[in-house]
């Protein structure tokens, strides 16, 4: 299947002046129109990667193409396509919302367009606040203003660096809704986060970065299916003191002081009919172990992520 990359990162490395290597030969393609989540612990290199693409940090080696334009040699063509929402809530405290958004549009060389600014401000529920000074806004509102600034010049690609850090749950939902609407309008979105929940909720594809290396890039659905182990919990009628020897061939554990049996299996093997559930149930029947209830649980992206990061660390 052919995917049209809107950003190509090729063997990108960055070593800071102090000797810290923040990126190690990272290669990545972002597809036009997708929401890509870059997931990783603090200090993994997420912000450095974004900063190099947006021209805020010089790469040590490698290159970045934005819509086919080298982001250093053809920086104008590359940068005018990109909107960046930084992680820190940076702003000039005394400037008014309208002025700062208009300023952003001008910086990117676009002619004045009050109608577009109005549309952007309305879509972010900022229209009523347009005459307010930044200092009078709440943290969530400031974050929205930063998004409005990034959208003021009609970018094709939007970078959101930790868009919901320090934002309350309700506002986070709103923010996700805004991001979805943007994607529906054709904007490619790359967001970094260390909230797995956020990637799980939003992303089409997920990249995991750790120690400056991109350890994995995968469709979210595939990722969750491939790496998803499942658990079957059986709530027993009579508690067991130990797992009977006859059940030894199954991956079982006792839980709830012998009142529950937990069976772990790999969800990806379901298709091959070897989940082992049928055999387990038959063996239980043979042993005369009855159960009153059962439930299964698929591991969340968070568990997948933690196990992945641990695995790589070993």
């Amino acid at each position, binding site marked *: 299947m052919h995917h049209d990359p809107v950003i190509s990162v090729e063997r990108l490395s960055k070593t*800071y*002046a102090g000797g810290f290597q923040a990126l190690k030969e990272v290669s990545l393609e972002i597809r036009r129109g997708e929401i890509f989540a870059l997931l990783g612990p603090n200090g993994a290199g997420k912000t450095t990667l974004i900063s190099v693409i*947006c*021209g*805020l*940090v*010089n790469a040590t080696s490698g290159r970045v193409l934005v819509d086919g334009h080298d982001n250093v040699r053809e*920086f*104008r*063509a*590359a*940068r*005018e396509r*990109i909107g*960046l929402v*930084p992680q*820190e809530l*940076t*702003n*000039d*405290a*005394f400037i008014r919302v309208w*002025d700062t958004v208009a*300023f*952003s549009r*001008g*910086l*990117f*060389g*676009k*002619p004045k367009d009050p109608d577009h600014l109005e549309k952007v401000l309305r879509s972010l529920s900022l229209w009523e606040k347009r005459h307010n000074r930044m200092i009078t806004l709440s943290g969530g509102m400031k974050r929205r203003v930063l998004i409005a*600034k990034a959208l003021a010049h009609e970018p094709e690609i939007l970078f959101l660096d930790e868009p919901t850090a320090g934002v309350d749950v309700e506002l986070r939902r709103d923010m996700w809704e805004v991001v979805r609407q943007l994607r529906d309008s054709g904007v490619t979105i790359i967001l970094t986060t260390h909230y797995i929940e956020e990637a799980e909720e939003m992303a089409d594809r997920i990249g995991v970065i750790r120690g400056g290396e991109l350890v994995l890039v995968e469709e979210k659905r595939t990722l969750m299916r491939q790496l998803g182990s499942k658990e079957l919990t059986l709530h027993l009628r009579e508690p067991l003191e130990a797992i009977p020897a006859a059940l030894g061939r199954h991956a079982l554990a006792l839980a709830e002081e012998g009142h529950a049996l937990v069976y772990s299996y790999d969800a990806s093997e379901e298709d091959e009919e070897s989940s082992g559930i049928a055999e387990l149930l038959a063996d239980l029947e043979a042993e005369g172990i009855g159960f009153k209830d059962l439930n299964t649980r698929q591991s969340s992206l968070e568990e997948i992520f933690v196990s992945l990061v641990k695995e790589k660390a070993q």
Partner: protein
Amino acid sequence: MNLNAVKTLYQAEMARSLRTVLQSVVSPVISTSLYFVVFGAAIGTRISEVNGVSYGAFIVPGLIMLLLLTQSVSNASFGIFFPRFSGTIYEVLSAPMSYREIVMGYVGAAATKSIILGLIVLATARLFVPYSIEHPLMMVLFLVLTALTFSLLGFIIGIWADGFEKLQLVPLLVITPLTFLGGTFYSIDMLPPFWQAVTLANPVVYLVSGFRWSFYGIGDVSPVVSLVVITLFLAAALAVVERIFRTGYRLKP
């Protein structure tokens, strides 16, 4: 060339000064006018003429230079330091602007502000002391070159400074002493020969001298030398700024 961006940056910087018009316009004009009142109108009448010019008129070009130097440096250094300090610089650096366009926006605005201030003070001086301008075009040329050069210097300081202390350090410890010792209030031939020689190492002497020549046709050094010195100074500042951007110093790790 991204002219829209340069214009946007320039206007935003000018608007910032308008928001603080008391601090950025009224206060320097008042403090410079006080010099005219004290040294021009009050004490000046008791000081004999310098090279055929009354003392009050003699110090007008020097004081305007003093104002121009300090205002250019402080405007330009604050203009770039503040967005670095607050973090809003990310937007300018990620915009489709070349380094030169960024410099044009910031330095252009800082120089414009100090030229406007210089002209306001020049007009205000008229209220206290009579003066004439023999070479108005040269006067404007000196005004513009000096404002540009020292705004570039301020821009460099604003990038070099990593805190408010350093931001104040150069203006207070270097610019102000050089200006006071640069012939603002006296002609250097009033000094003993040794100090005359030392003074010639002070670049501000050439600025004040050239500027004063455009008013009264007199100066400590020839106006051509003044022009050469300030042009060299401008070229040096441009070279440093060019290097800052090429290496990404303090702006782009």
